[in-house]
């Protein structure tokens, strides 16, 4: 396993992606001018580019309905909504996010990360390290025990009730058994992951989503502003040694934000299987009320000592958690990396301290579409554009990982993007 040090991190080459990415990709709603990309110029001799319509759906909930109903032709969503389309027979998976072209460029792209406020990192570094250690081992556990993890996540997220999607009923656990293997649970800030992160920073700057401190910084400064892997590195070392040092007791209750998503399965597993982690690593998040199906207060126990009382705050979007962090409503959070970046850009004193998982999204097209993979999808999109009825593809929201990836993917393939309503 690679152990990036602070120095190693900054020495990772910043650009391993396609050269096209160096060209500004500008899609702003205010003025829909799309800067021509080199690839695009090569493709469209006539000068008029094919179009795809982007629909901002504000979350993924309505997407299956919109797709089944023919209001959209496809969507890009996080898991398990990619699997849901398949299982409910309303769509097919075109491509998982890690496989987006050019081949390998999005491999291990970042998704959810753990962030912690500067305050808590400096006031309770050993606590943050202990949490990191637990997150490392729980990430590991999920990767190796997919089916059991799927059961725990299903239970946490949606209980035992079957999903109803149109005519189909599916058990949540079956959905998650399909979706978890497509998500790469790893707490390792690998070079792929770092590249992906930088790509998001770049793109967010170009899209105008960030315009503050981060945008104006050099790549090195950016890394320093955004990442702080020190707790992670110490944690990693402790895990490898097999001994977790008992941190000082944290007097004030700590709030930890998370998303109601299977991407945060490691957290659910860490809590539901706390006994296992306690026995094996002597570190655990023990629910205060063990009968609660979705505990909201847990204790961090290290080597049998109660270290901290932690309140869990669920949210349906990362940005809300970042607003909370800025208001000192939470001290640590599981959230997608873009909201963390833009929060730092706007002056929130918070850092990304480790990844939770990589990849875990996908593009879905309606069941009746002629597309089967990303190439035929592009052809279909072109054909529809030529016919004068461009595809409508939904994204969960402006500036989300999924939104950014779809925009880059389509623009690189020579499309003009238009937000529709």
């Amino acid at each position, binding site marked *: 396993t690679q152990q990036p040090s602070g120095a190693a991190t900054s020495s990772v080459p910043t650009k391993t992606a396609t050269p096209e990415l160096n060209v500004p990709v500008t899609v702003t709603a205010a003025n829909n001018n799309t800067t021509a990309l080199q690839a695009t110029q090569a493709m469209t001799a006539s000068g008029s580019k094919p179009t795809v319509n982007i629909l901002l759906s504000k979350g993924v909930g309505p997407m299956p309905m919109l797709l089944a109903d023919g209001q959209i032709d496809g969507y890009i969503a996080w898991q398990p909504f990619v699997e849901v389309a398949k299982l409910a027979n309303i769509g097919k998976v075109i491509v998982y996010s890690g496989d987006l072209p050019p081949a390998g460029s999005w491999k291990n792209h970042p998704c959810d990360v753990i962030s912690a406020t500067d305050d808590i990192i400096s006031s309770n570094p050993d606590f943050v390290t202990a949490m990191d250690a637990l997150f490392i081992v729980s990430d590991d556990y999920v990767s190796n025990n997919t089916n059991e993890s799927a059961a725990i996540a299903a*239970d946490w997220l949606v*209980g035992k009730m079957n999903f109803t999607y149109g*005519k189909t009923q599916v058990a949540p656990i079956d959905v998650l058994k399909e979706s978890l293997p497509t998500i790469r649970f790893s707490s390792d800030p690998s070079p792929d992951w770092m590249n992906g992160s930088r790509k998001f920073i770049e793109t967010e700057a170009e899209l105008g989503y960030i315009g503050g401190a981060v945008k104006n910084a050099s790549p090195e400064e950016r890394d320093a502003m955004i990442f702080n892997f020190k707790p992670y590195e110490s944690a990693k070392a402790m895990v490898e040694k097999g001994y977790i040092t008992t941190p000082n007791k944290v007097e004030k209750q700590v709030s930890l934000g998370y998303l109601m998503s299977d991407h945060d399965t490691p957290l659910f597993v860490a809590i539901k299987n706390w006994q296992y982690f306690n026995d094996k690593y002597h570190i655990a998040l023990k629910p205060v009320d063990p009968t609660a*199906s979705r505990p909201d207060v847990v204790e961090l126990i290290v080597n049998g000592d109660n270290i901290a009382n932690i309140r869990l705050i669920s*949210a*349906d979007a990362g940005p809300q958690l970042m607003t909370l962090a800025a208001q000192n409503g939470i001290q640590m959070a599981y959230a997608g990396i873009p909201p963390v970046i833009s929060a730092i850009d706007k002056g929130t004193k918070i850092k990304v301290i480790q990844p939770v998982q990589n990849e875990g999204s996908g593009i879905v097209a309606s069941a009746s579409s002629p597309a089967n993979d990303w190439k035929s999808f592009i052809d279909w999109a072109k054909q529809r554009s030529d016919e004068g009825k461009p595809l409508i593809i939904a994204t969960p929201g402006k500036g989300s990982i999924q939104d950014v990836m779809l925009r880059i993917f389509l623009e690189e393939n020579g499309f003009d993007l238009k937000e529709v309503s």
Partner: protein
Amino acid sequence: MGKSICCKKTLIRIILPLIIIITWEALAYLINNEFILPKIESILLVLLTPTADILGSGGLIGNAAISITRVLIGFLVAALVAIPLGIMMGRRETVHDFFDVTIQLIRPVPPLAWVPLSLAWFKIGITSMAFLIALGAFFPILLNTMDGVKGVKRTWIEAATNLGASEWHILKKVVLPGSAPTMWTGLRVGFGIAWMCVVAAEMLPGTNSGLGYLIMYAYNWGQVQVIIAGMVIIGLIGLIFDTFFKEVERRKFSWRELDR
């Protein structure tokens, strides 16, 4: 004969709900798409097992109880602030002028828009929720109290003064009972709006229970039948409370209508 008239009335009253249910079911079978129109069975399945867990968030009854508690807390806060303020604004022109502009400016802002500020000021938890709910209930209670107090007949007050009542007696024995019916209407309307605000309040981060949460959570997972079941329960509870308020009105405040 009185009985048959009453029967006919009941019949007329339930025709439309029946028509809607039947049409719904017929259309549901015709369209055969649970996304657009879930079958009544699917909805009933949720409604008739009100203690069964829904999306890992507990049963309908439990969530309804939680929401009702939240609404009651927010409603009480609103009433405790709005009634005294309304009385003062209704009695004293200066107090009215002092608060008027601010109130008129804040009134049109939807509770949903207050979510971020509420989070910042009151943190996550019941305080924030109560704030959002209270915001919704506050204005109808305030404005009706004010109206009620202004509507207290001058001659009642003069008669009381003339009979030797002090300012405090007048407040307690004339202004309060005299404006009570209008105030009650304000409480009724305010409660209705508080109840409607529960969805906005339960969209606050950190919430994982309540009918409003259930509806929005079901929306996030695309579970239409749960949403509709939630709506039915919200409608029913709203109806029950409204009926309670109206019944009290009929019993206690009928003098207002009859005194005309």
